[in-house]
């Protein structure tokens, strides 16, 4: 039986700020018997330009990305937002080639459950109390909702109720720079409603950076840990 082979799309932000989470993605996938490639020509999915209305700039990045990943059987990202960009918008921005890429592209937890059929990872999160932030694009563009929760719980973690778990953290890419005051108030709502937990996690580094940046600014809050790192801990 041939092994599953995936191309990792690390994403710009995670490459620099959540490099360990990318490495944990590789470790986790390898542990599950998957061969991981890292196409070195990868750059940006084009979301920042696309979301700010610079469609032509986005299209050139989309075409580049399609070219870089054209031979990959599966493309896996440790980011719901960048995955959402590819899945939801590439078909419309780059026609058939974009559509074909989008159908082979998965957010990490989505890939584990939908493609690999993982039901339980291990028990490495026993005793951990977590709050899970549903990144907007993972939740609404990908429909990824129970996958990360089940994987975390399956590894022994208690994922607690959080009334604002589906409310936007206020990151929104350039939104957080264009409307910083409202963006920060949105993060504050997340923090104000956050239950007492060992860590907050999410499938998106951008959301974690936004919430932890605000928490540190206000000198409050637990650690913010990327989902990929917790899932890797889960299998151990």
């Amino acid at each position, binding site marked *: 039986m041939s092994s599953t082979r995936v191309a990792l799309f690390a994403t710009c932000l*995670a*490459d*620099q*700020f*959540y*490099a*360990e989470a*990318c*490495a944990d993605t*590789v*470790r986790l996938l390898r542990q599950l018997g998957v061969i991981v490639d*890292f196409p*070195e*020509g990868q*750059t940006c999915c084009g979301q*920042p*330009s696309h*979301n*700010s*209305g*610079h*469609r*032509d*700039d*986005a299209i*050139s*990045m989309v075409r*580049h990305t399609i070219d870089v990943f054209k031979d990959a059987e599966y493309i896996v990202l440790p980011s719901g937002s960048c995955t959402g960009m590819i899945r939801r918008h590439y078909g419309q921005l780059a026609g058939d080639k974009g559509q074909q890429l989008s159908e082979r592209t998965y957010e990490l937890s989505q890939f584990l459950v939908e493609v690999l059929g993982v039901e339980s990872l291990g028990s490495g999160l026993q005793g951990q109390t977590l709050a899970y932030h549903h990144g*907007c*694009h993972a939740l*609404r*563009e990908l429909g990824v909702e129970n996958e990360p929760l089940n994987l975390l719980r399956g590894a022994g973690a208690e994922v607690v109720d959080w009334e604002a778990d*589906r*409310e*936007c953290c*206020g*990151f*929104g890419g*350039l*939104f*957080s*720079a*264009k*409307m*910083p*005051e*409202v*963006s*920060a*108030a*949105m*993060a504050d*709502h997340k923090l104000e409603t956050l239950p007492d937990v060992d860590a907050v996690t999410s499938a998106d580094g951008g959301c974690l*950076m*936004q919430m*932890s*940046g*605000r928490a*540190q*600014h206000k000198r409050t809050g637990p650690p913010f840990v990327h989902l990929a790192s917790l899932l890797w801990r889960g299998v151990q």
Partner: protein
Amino acid sequence: MTQSTPSDYREASARSLRDTPSVRTSVGSATRTFDAHRVSAFSEVEYDRWKDWARDTKTHALTHLDTYLAQASAQLEARGVHVHWAETAEDALSVLDEVVERHGIKSAVKGKSMLTEELEVNAHLETLGVRPIETDLGEYIIQLLGEPPSHIVGPAIHKSLDDCRALFHDRLGTPLDADPDTLAAAARDALRAEFLAAGLGISGGNFLAADTGTIALIENEGNIRLATSVPDVHVAFVGIEKIVPRFEDLAGFLQITARSATGQAIGLFVSLIQGPRTPSEIDGPKEVHVVLVDNGRTRLLADDTAWEALRCVRCGACLNICPVYRQTGGHAYGWTYSGPLGAIISPGMLGLEKAMPLPHASSLCGACVDVCPVRIPIPDILLHWREKAVDAGLAPTGETFGSKAYAGLAERPASFAAANAALRWTPWRAAGRALPILKGWMQERSAPTPSKKSFRQMWKEGIE
């Protein structure tokens, strides 16, 4: 109070958060309550099927707008209603000039209507020497305060109970610790005399059924019923997009609107108005005017993407769920329509230049899509306006330059990797002072913690 404009959004939202933090508390609490009621109300029915029906019916009406408007107009005129076609706000307001003069009107009682806010009816009445009296409790509160509505369904949701207690104590003499019932009773007493004295009643219209020429009005307080039946003259301002094909369509729209807005199965009062009092009737207005208002709506209809926004039934569900709206309420948007709704219709109705940066007052979280009863693709329309703004040269120069440079780099992986790696070495505090794009981030948040090595580097060295 000076009313801001959409172009002041960033400053106005920051000011609201800094200077009036109670607004965030009141709006956050009210919108979350409204939304919880919506969720509960739709758990009883086939939400998706209702939404499909509402979307399709509204789309059909909008694609045959001329036919249905002519049909409605003919029906209304046959029953003695004066129908006026108003292309602009001025055209709409001029209907009042004639009515006020002919009847010697001194005061007018108003039912809640966002269209009359859009047209600035109250200010116009004052220039005619007519005293306008808002009779919806929320509208009455903000009229006493001299403020515009901050929400299309709950105009005073940015005010706390204590704000209202202080206001009514000052203006109506109620005790400072009065309970809500006492406050409402005081308003009712004050307003009852106004209903009896007014020569003119003014309303909007939630829907206009084409086949029968019926205006449907939804409310909970009975004030619209009084305003449209007690005075001798009734003027209804109705946006042309309010048309629905058939009287029986009202059954669906009255329910889906009420459930979306407040979680009620239907509004406590529904008025169906078809014309003035007939000889066999003992009450109702003697004269009815219906003003069909365009004021930018056909301009929005002509847009190949944003036209879908005209399906809007003004339920406010998108405001209630919007995490951006929840922080400031509606005043920061600087226009009658706020929240996601305001952000998608303002560029079409006011013009793109005047509406900027409202299409950027969203993180594109998409929560609004799930709650819109007529399935308006709100984030797609926001993106559409952002693209139009770029095409029109309205994007900030630095951003346009940055996007081009970034896209150029992204096609040269080695250069991109080097530039991206610089993010880890950026002196964030200094950069936050120097670069406008980082300034906002840095003044509200701590600097992000870069990884020790980039993942790209880790991969080269081998992942253990």
